[in-house]
């Protein structure tokens, strides 16, 4: 329904308001120049902001240089099923650094109001064989390019966007759980009872603060499926997902495949080089799901595996937010 509305609105714009549109573009141009001017003349606010430029480097700019204008324009065009234009998000997880701190998990749970016995992010205690060393392996949704979950969904409630994200429309999901059976990474969780999340308001950057259903699959709804959403509400603000920023060891790198860069907030790396140098791989490559989450093998460890054991609970994920 929502899509239809925007479509017809767009057509209307195209047909009737061509002249107006030209004026509008002119106006945007003018405001741009104007704001540049003001930015130059204004005193710097002293509020610094980290941004990723098109060539992938992180620059620190004064927040007064960030223009509101473009932002609003993007929101208008934002179609939840299409995603953000010309982006392709990836994650790299460096297993050599993970010591099962579980900060990622609790941050993800808190920020997504996860109330069930499950969590969207899991940290597995892995050991391939008796003669290989054990390691900790965090998993999120792999946001596969050939997502098994999307293929089997009978009502298109779970969908793949151009920017790589696989999201769930919890207003449409019929709760058949076919996608859960299809996902080889067991990443999907189900709301078996009323989630009782309370009121969820996320600031999506537009005029009204509203529940962020079409952005992040929130709030959770009884009888429907949830999973890691790659935090589109954070990406839109040019921020990193909760798990990335929460990890004290910098295990998670997040970035854009088209720009060939990933960052964990501290260092920014060239994705292709990182994967080549460190022999990055994807989980269950043989299935052909083409995940967008890459792993760096647990070699040259930075932490001790044993340390993580204290925090490991076999039958419980981390504490839930109150």
């Amino acid at each position, binding site marked *: 329904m929502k899509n239809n509305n925007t479509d017809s609105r767009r057509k209307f714009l195209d047909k009737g308001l061509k002249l107006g549109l030209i004026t509008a573009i002119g106006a945007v141009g003018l405001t741009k120049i104007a704001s540049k001017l003001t930015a130059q003349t204004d005193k710097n606010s002293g509020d610094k902001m980290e941004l990723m430029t098109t060539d992938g480097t992180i620059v620190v700019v004064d927040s007064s240089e960030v223009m509101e204008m473009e932002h609003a324009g993007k929101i208008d065009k934002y179609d939840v099923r299409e995603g953000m234009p010309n982006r392709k998000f990836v994650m790299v997880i460096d297993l050599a650094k993970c010591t099962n701190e579980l900060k990622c998990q609790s941050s993800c749970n808190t920020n997504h109001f996860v109330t069930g016995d499950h969590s969207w992010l899991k940290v597995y205690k892995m050991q391939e064989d008796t003669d290989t060393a054990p390691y900790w392996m965090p998993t999120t949704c792999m946001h596969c390019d050939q997502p098994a979950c999307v293929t089997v969904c*009978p009502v298109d409630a779970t969908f793949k966007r151009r920017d790589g994200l696989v999201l769930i429309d919890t207003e*449409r999901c019929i709760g058949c759980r076919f996608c*859960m059976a*299809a996902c080889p990474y067991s990443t999907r969780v189900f*709301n078996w009872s009323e989630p009782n999340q309370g009121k969820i308001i996320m600031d999506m950057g537009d005029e009204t603060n509203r529940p962020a259903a079409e952005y992040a699959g929130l709030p959770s709804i009884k009888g*429907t499926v949830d999973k890691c959403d790659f935090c589109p509400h954070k990406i839109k603000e040019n921020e990193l997902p909760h798990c990335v920023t929460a990890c004290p060891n910098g295990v998670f790198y997040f970035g854009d495949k088209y720009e060939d860069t990933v960052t964990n907030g501290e260092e920014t790396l060239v994705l292709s080089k990182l994967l080549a140098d460190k022999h990055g791989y994807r989980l269950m490559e043989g299935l052909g799901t083409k995940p967008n989450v890459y792993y760096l093998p647990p070699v040259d460890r930075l932490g001790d595996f044993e340390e993580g054991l204290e925090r490991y609970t076999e*039958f419980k994920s981390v504490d839930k937010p109150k």
Partner: protein
Amino acid sequence: MKNYDKLLHDLAPQKFGKKGVIWTISLVVLIVLGIIAYIDQIIRGQMVTNMNDYALWGVYISNFVFFVATSFVGTVAVAVLRLTNNNWRTPIVRIAEIIAVAAIIMAGITIMIDMGRPDRLLNLFIHGRMQSPITWDVIIIPTAMMVCLLLLYFPLLPDFGLLHKHYEDKKPKLSKWYGRLSLNWTGSDAQKALQHKSIQIIAILIIPVGFMLQTIDAWLFSTLYRVGWDSTNLGAYFISGASVAGIGALVCVVYVLQKVYKLEDYITDLHFDKLGKFLVLVCLIYLYFNLNEYLIPQLTSKKGSTTHINVLFKGEYAPLFWFVTIGGLIIPVIVLLFKQGRKPLPMFLIGLLVVAGSWWKRYLIVTPTLLHPFLPIQGVPESWHHYFPSMHEWLITIGTLAMALLIITVLVRYVPIVPIQKTADEQEELQLNKITKS
């Protein structure tokens, strides 16, 4: 005409005796309990089941698969019995079609019980997408339902006509109903030709529809990357398994009806003998597919499949697995190979065993696979490592089974189970043969 009188007396639907009434009432009670449990499930969410994020499907789905499988008996009956014109089939085919109708209706209902949001059922039509095997199911189940109903209905027309006349004086109300159902059957040649043609078309239609139904049901699983489902063999495996379940159910129902309605003259030892041979055949075919499913992966011993199979062979599910394999397949084959084993009573007992085996077999297809995903189960409550249906799930499942039996019961109460007209025609033919011979 005299002929008809005796036949009508024997074969016209009879009022239930005391036992029949008690039976019907107990079924209704079970159904009501199931409905109460289901309402509770809707209110509280599927929390009331023992399903979890790993055992994400449970007894509802295996029960659904069982119903779909059982409905295959309609197809088998037609393919093997009606089209080949085996003349011993007459009393059996209609019972098979009654079972098929009951099973396919219940399959449609049970799949909805599993849905987390049954209130959004219409989304399947509003947003349905062709690439999902569930959408194929949404198309094929109603189709199969229609075909099964018509296949039961068309051959009934002349019998309804006869019953209309039969009850004209005694029970005018009932007679009126039969009259309506018979679509003003007079038995004219034109009507007969039309009826014959319609039956032929439907009988041919049900074969592809039945096979498609079973195959799609198998694809629900084999399109998923899971050890134990991800098999190219699964379609054929499901079809042969469905034949076993269907024929098993048929044997049981035929036996009960023979006893209750005293139809020994019409359903004889010969029928049981033939059905027994047929059951052995399908059991053997199914055994062959079972070997393919379980033994071959064991021999090639891929890591994932060996764990899965070891769980079945000697792990948590071993007792069930061996019950299903030995009790549900091997013992029936051995017993039915002997002539004595194909007498009505042993056949009935074997039929029960086969049906129970088939039901649990579906459970074994669904549950152990889900509990052995690719990544280990960690960081979830201990109870999520196992699955056994909860009270609610049992009540609801038993309710659906009772409902299937109730549909069969109601049908056999009002529908002549042994086709009257057809039997009359056949007897006439026999007599003619005798006369010409002597």
